[in-house]
């Protein structure tokens, strides 16, 4: 089947792109917040939302809030639109890879 035979998408790609980019941003915020907590005692203590779990509670709560807020915002902006998905894909995957690297302790120690 060549491209001209492909059926035209019924649902615009904006909603999917919004969900994907928001997930990548949420993951990246988690990695950056964890990194910041590792480098600064002040940030680390301010992330101590729930004492038994320690700073991890703040890192994950902040990341989840940013993820959900970003998702809501992007869904509102892009939900019914067709967006440049190739670029959003590339940015999302780059953020995801950076997030994984930024949580890897030997890399955190190097920076």
């Amino acid at each position: 089947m060549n491209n001209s035979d492909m059926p035209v998408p019924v649902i615009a790609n904006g909603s999917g792109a919004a969900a994907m980019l928001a997930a990548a941003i949420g993951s990246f915020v988690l990695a950056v917040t964890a990194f910041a907590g590792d480098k600064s005692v002040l940030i680390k203590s301010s992330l101590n939302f729930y004492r038994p779990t320690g700073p991890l509670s703040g890192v994950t709560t902040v990341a989840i809030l940013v993820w959900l807020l970003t998702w809501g915002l992007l869904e509102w902006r892009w939900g019914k639109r067709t967006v440049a998905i190739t670029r959003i894909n590339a940015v999302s995957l780059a953020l995801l890879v950076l997030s994984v690297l930024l949580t890897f302790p030997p890399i955190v120690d190097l920076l």
Partner: protein
Amino acid sequence: MEITLRSFWTLMHGMGFGALYLLACSGALIELYRFVTSFAQAGETARDERFLKIYLIAMVVLAWSAVLTGAYVIYPWYRAASPPGTKDLALFPQRLLMSSPSTAGWHSLGMEWKEHIAWFAPISITMVAFVFLKYGRDLKNHKQLRTGVLAFVLASFVSAGVAGFFGAMLDKYAPVQGGQTITVSKGERK
């Protein structure tokens, strides 16, 4: 046959939620790929789509259950501070690992990475489930979007794999134990 409350929750977290999620990930990768690339009959596709939607929702529940029990039930027991002068560190896994240079890396590399990377799994799979619930069969018409979705399932699999591997190794070297004892069955004395 007995199990302590802490061991029970560790079992639920690792085997009940984590391992099941890892198994489900490989299935999701194959099933999603097959679904969005096949040209099956409409009736068959509708049935597959319904199944895959339920499957992905179950994965979302498993992933969130794994990280939430990990962070808020087991991790506090793992990182509990030992009272000064404690000789037996069996009830303080983090301190036990840090007390020897040969095991310290399981905490400083293993747990430090696991406690953060694990969260990428539920975030990614929630996105994947949302996209599939919203687009369903229409995902066949969005090549770029489905490439991204499959990449996120793979990322979720890798994240859960790293967390699962270190979880298993940490449990081997410094298991979370203690708490109330649950008697599962009473065996006969030989």
